[in-house]
């Protein structure tokens, strides 16, 4: 199809004065070819991988997931029958990390505890993120009084001494995995709420949101199709930190006695009697668990930091 607007250029001379020889060039569409540029995510991934600490962190996380969930498949231990003969044994034959006061193998307990800790961590973060994201997105989009009220609620909830609530609850209820996740999640949503609101406030002014409005988009569609997906990067970074925090809180909860019923336990619960164990000399019941906990939390932190840096780059270097 000949383009009526393509200018006909006349009177062009070749270097020797004669008419220039023309060979038609490849038919590229007027707008030019579209080259494949590494997508935003791929670029971010590369940035992430370039950060040595992040890779280490990721490796550690993967290791622990495998260790905790696949470990027991390979390494069977008795976790249910009380055996008075094998209580409180230090690391030695048959029990690489010794046994606890009920005769259960410590290594096996660490694996089981890790499963619980990781499950609670993920579950709690999930709850927190979903609630927080919706809350923040609605507040950010609505603006005005609605935003003010929603955010004041967040502020006030943040001022509450968390400790007090937990204490009261600890006396009344004992916990299941679900309970612990809820407890953590129901207070952890405050942070993503603030974050997402901030992001939405920024995104709201962007032209593509205006464009959607001009098309006649409803508010719901704006939030679900445009705002939240674009706020995702912030949310993802926050999730890794949430997981780290959740696992840490488990330690505190366990210490306070608001933990799972024995023999079920998370790493936090296992650290509940740390002081006694140390003073009694049962170091193998404290340090290995502690080290695992610290390692996983550290890994989450490293990954989260690197993700945040990488995603910043993606935003900046367009």
């Amino acid at each position, binding site marked *: 199809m000949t383009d009526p607007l393509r200018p006909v250029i006349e009177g062009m001379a070749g270097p020797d004065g004669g008419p220039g020889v023309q060979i038609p060039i490849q038919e590229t569409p007027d707008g030019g070819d579209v080259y494949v540029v590494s997508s935003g995510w791929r670029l971010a991934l590369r940035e992430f991988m370039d950060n*040595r*600490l992040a890779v280490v962190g990721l490796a550690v996380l993967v290791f622990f997931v495998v260790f905790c969930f696949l470990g027991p498949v390979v390494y069977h231990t008795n976790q249910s029958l009380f055996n008075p003969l094998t209580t409180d044994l230090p690391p030695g034959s048959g029990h690489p990390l010794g046994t606890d006061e009920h005769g259960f193998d410590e290594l096996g307990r660490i694996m089981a505890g890790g499963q619980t800790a990781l499950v609670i961590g993920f579950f709690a973060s999930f709850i927190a993120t979903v609630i927080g994201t919706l809350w923040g997105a609605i507040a950010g989009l609505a603006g005005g009084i609605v935003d003010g009220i929603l955010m004041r609620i967040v*502020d*006030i909830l*943040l*001022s*509450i*001494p*968390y*400790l*007090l609530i937990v*204490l009261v609850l600890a*006396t009344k209820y004992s916990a299941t995995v679900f309970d612990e996740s809820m407890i953590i999640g129901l*207070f*952890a949503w*405050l*942070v993503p709420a*603030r*974050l997402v609101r*901030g*992001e939405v*406030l*920024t995104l709201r*002014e962007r032209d593509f949101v205006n464009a959607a409005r001009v098309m006649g988009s409803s508010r719901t569609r704006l939030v679900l199709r445009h705002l939240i997906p674009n706020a995702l990067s*912030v949310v993802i970074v*926050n999730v890794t*930190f949430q997981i*780290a*925090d959740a696992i*840490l*809180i488990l*330690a*505190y909860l366990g*210490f306070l006695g608001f933990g799972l019923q024995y023999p079920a336990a998370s790493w936090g619960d296992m*650290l509940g009697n*740390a*002081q006694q164990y140390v003073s009694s000399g049962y170091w193998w019941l404290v340090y290995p668990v502690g080290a695992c*906990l*610290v*390692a996983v*939390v*550290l890994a989450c*932190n*490293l990954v989260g*930091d690197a993700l*945040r*840096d990488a995603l*910043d780059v993606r935003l*900046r270097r367009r």
Partner: protein
Amino acid sequence: MSFGPSRILLDAEASARAPEVDFGDISTVSPDLLLWRRFRSSRAAKISAAAIIVLLVIAILAPLVVDIIGVTGPNVRNASTLNSFGLPTGPSFAHPFGVDDMGRDVLARVIYGARIALLVGICGTLIATVAGAAIGLVAGVYGGWIETVLMGAVDLFLAFPMVLLGLGIGDACRVSGCGGGVIEPGTGTVIFIVVLCSFPYVARSVRRRVVSLRDEEFVFAARSLGASTSRILYRELLPNLMAPLIVYAVVLIPTNILLEAALSFLGVGISSPTADWGQMISGAGNDILSGNAAWWYLVFPGLALLLTVLAFNLVGDVLLVALRSPTTSDP
């Protein structure tokens, strides 16, 4: 959310600049002053700030205040206030907040408790801010392996259940202090733990800010004028960090106050008979559990804690928003 400073500090910083509008001549005001002005124009912030100042005055002049109000001192045990069962009496004319199980006036103890809370909160925050800022600056400016090492160490600190570690430190330093006597037992130890818990957050925040600043065009322009790295650090970067740093500190204070309460609640550091909110709540909690329905010496310290933290939070919130606003468009 953890018992340490919450991550809101770090992430609240993340914001984009609002679209700039160029208006020609505007009144003579520096960005820092603009921040202050915006703060002043918020009623909620002014009320909160006033409340904080009042609290500070009361805390500093605690003995005087207690005298003026006319209640007995915080450590004065007065068995006569106990009723016939040996249990403490509630709010009365002589003791507006009631007495605790040893006959000590709760109002006085709440007032003296403010001293500890503010001392630890403010001092601890100050030290943590300076230390964290230094680390973050160095890491951000020099980059490379220095940055990797420093930030790795910071992350490691963050990975520890600090409060639990704090218990260990508290125990260890209880009798004769730590660090060759620099860290005294009691308040000193608590401040030390608070610093350990909060400086990583400051360091991380500062580093992030430095990293984003170092790519700013005015830094590049300074370089094009021939400035060296250290010169850029002092003359370009530092002034740009002042305002956010102050705001962080203010936002950090309430979390550290809560942390201090939590620590004494758990038995670290501040010991009886010194009045301390966390301890009072802890003691009260125990009594309630054992059947003593003496609500007043749980509620009043709890309220005091809540209101103080709320006031600081509000001020910090307003400052945060003011920090984000564009530096132009102020008539």
